[in-house]
């Protein structure tokens, strides 16, 4: 590979360093370059695509790319229908995934996704130092950071970690070390005619169960709380429709058992019986249930590989050990350290109605990375911010267009907002895409923020936030069945909501 022989970014001092060459690292590097920010990209991998070089295990994604959509392919509005392409800084490299899929599914295969990310890198000419592992971190006296790597020492004033959340994690129950992690699943034929016990009711567990349906003799899936299904939560929370088949098999009595039970311990079985015994306790009534199994698989999740960042003061929380972050994905406790890619889930946002952002998936994280790059460019590198003027009589149409076509609002509901500010001296300005939590909590001049939201009932509806004299109010607009807000009724609703603001500026 050209990337390997070239080996850019030798050890030394850089204004900014990005670690990781998964979709997160690649997207933030592309966007930083768009803002003219000189930076190095380091990755332990030998080629781009990050986690998608290995997973999903059964070789098909759960995020879609629709070749045919109500809007023209390769445009910004088309991004709403293409969850998997990274966003280039120039138009000709948009929607790379579409040309690489064979048409058998609108979920790309894992190799198609890998090819898409590789194509993005080669077409846009992104540069990465591959085979360079970050091993340690130090804060220098002048506030800059030092990174130790397998290639030597780097220094930088700003760090962006896009190291993913893909390090296998398993709980501490006794005998858990006897279980194989999702990451260590063997080729599926090796599970033929076996009793499989899967711990964990998230997508990874159900993905394995789906793939093993034609092979396993019996599948038990267990964890303490009931399975949630995305079609019931009306969000990406819960098991995606693609992986619901084991659930149907269970309710129809086919040979899959789905249990709400805590795993007490895993033991080795008797010499002549099953290799493993899993001792569980039912959540409902504490009744002990014991299962023989030929294989026990811990689909118990992943953590972020933060190495020594916690020692530097980076606070983490939750089972995935995500770094706690500001709305602009900066460590909440160590300024100058930022996060991109799926690790950006640590900036939870408002989580209205309990519905998280899509920052854990490419379709959400790619916009976070672009907003982050702009934030870094303006706040840490003193780049001028582009904030085009918007004519007063254009405001309503501008907002309705964004609510209907803006991919950032579509993919990051109640998380990213389109903001127009109404500073009396500057007139009306398009502030672009801003984290909603920032808009709501940070204060500032009078402004309008537009988002799309869901409340778990299934509808997707616009919400307009007005900031007037420092106080933020919230104004929902009724959902439209075709999700098109360029209608007379939405126009009159929005005009009514904005009237007090537009009357003033």
């Amino acid at each position: 590979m050209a990337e390997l022989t070239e080996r850019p970014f030798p050890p030394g001092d850089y204004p900014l360093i990005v670690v990781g060459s998964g979709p997160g690292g690649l997207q933030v590097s592309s966007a930083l370059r768009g803002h003219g920010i000189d930076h190095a990209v380091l990755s332990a991998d030998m080629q781009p695509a990050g986690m998608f070089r290995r997973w999903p295990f059964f070789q098909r994604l759960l995020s879609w790319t629709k070749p045919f959509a109500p809007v023209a392919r390769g445009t910004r509005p088309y991004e709403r229908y293409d969850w998997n392409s990274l966003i280039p800084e120039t138009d000709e490299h948009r929607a790379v995934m579409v040309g690489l899929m064979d048409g058998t599914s609108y979920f790309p295969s894992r190799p198609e996704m890998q090819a898409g990310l590789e194509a993005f890198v080669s077409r846009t000419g992104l540069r990465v130092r591959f085979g360079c592992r970050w091993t340690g971190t130090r804060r220098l006296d002048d506030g800059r950071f030092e990174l130790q790597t397998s290639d030597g020492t780097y220094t930088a004033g700003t760090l962006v970690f896009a190291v993913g959340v893909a390090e296998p994690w398993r709980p501490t129950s006794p005998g858990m070390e006897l279980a194989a992690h999702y990451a260590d699943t063997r080729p599926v034929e090796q599970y033929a005619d076996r009793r499989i016990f899967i711990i964990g009711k998230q997508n990874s567990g159900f993905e394995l169960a789906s793939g093993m349906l034609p092979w396993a003799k019996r599948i038990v899936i267990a964890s303490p709380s009931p399975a949630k299904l995305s079609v019931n939560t009306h969000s990406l929370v819960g098991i995606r429709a693609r992986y619901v088949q084991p659930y149907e098999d269970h309710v129809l009595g086919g040979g899959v058992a789905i249990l709400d039970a805590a795993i007490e311990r895993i033991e080795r079985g008797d010499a002549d019986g099953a290799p493993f015994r899993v001792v569980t306790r039912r959540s409902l009534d504490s009744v002990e249930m014991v299962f023989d199994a030929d294989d026990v698989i811990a689909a118990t999740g992943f953590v972020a590989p933060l190495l020594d960042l916690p020692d530097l003061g980076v606070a983490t929380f939750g089972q995935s050990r995500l770094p706690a972050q500001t709305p602009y994905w900066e460590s909440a406790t160590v300024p100058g350290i930022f996060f991109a890619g799926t690790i950006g889930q640590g900036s939870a946002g408002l989580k209205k109605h309990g519905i998280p952002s899509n920052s854990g998936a490419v379709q959400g994280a790619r916009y976070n990375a672009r907003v982050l790059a702009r934030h870094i460019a303006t706040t840490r590198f003193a780049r001028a911010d582009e904030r085009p003027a918007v004519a007063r009589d254009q405001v309503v149409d501008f907002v309705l267009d964004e609510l209907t076509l803006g991919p950032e609002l579509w993919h990051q509901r109640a998380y990213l907002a389109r903001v127009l500010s109404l500073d009396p001296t500057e007139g009306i300005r398009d502030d672009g895409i801003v984290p909603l939590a920032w808009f709501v909590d940070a204060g500032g001049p009078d402004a309008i923020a537009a988002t799309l939201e869901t409340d778990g009932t299934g509808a997707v509806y616009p919400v307009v936030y007005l900031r007037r004299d420092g106080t933020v109010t919230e104004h929902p607009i009724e959902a439209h069945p075709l999700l098109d807000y360029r209608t007379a009724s939405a126009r009159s609703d929005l005009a009514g909501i904005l009237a007090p603001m537009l009357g003033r500026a």
Partner: protein
Amino acid sequence: MADSAEIADELAGFALFADLTTPQLMGVAHAFEEAWFKDGERVLRQGMTGSGLYLILDGQASIRVDGEERAKLSRGEFFGEVSILLGEPPVADVVALGTLRCLVLASSAVEGFLNDHPTLMYRMLQASARRLRNANRWRS
């Protein structure tokens, strides 16, 4: 960081969860999510829809109405239930006082959760009654 077994252990020490068995506590630990707030960050926002039920694991929170502190909450205490039960936006801000670590349950999941855990519902009712009594005491 904490896994659900550790969270279940923490919950076992809170009065609210005193009647639950270990497997039930594990279920609770799984159903709730962990959230982390830095000093001064808003957890609930006065007048804004879509909040959840919060339980404090570590730290303190200030209940503020129009910017004025009305009460402080600490480890083991919960908030957010009033707006969920009434289906109305919160009438107060809740703001982190120092670093605050909570468990959160989405509003849509609260009714089912309480129905599944009636003893917990009873203890929540007791805690609410105590708050009401204290509030009335201040007033008189």
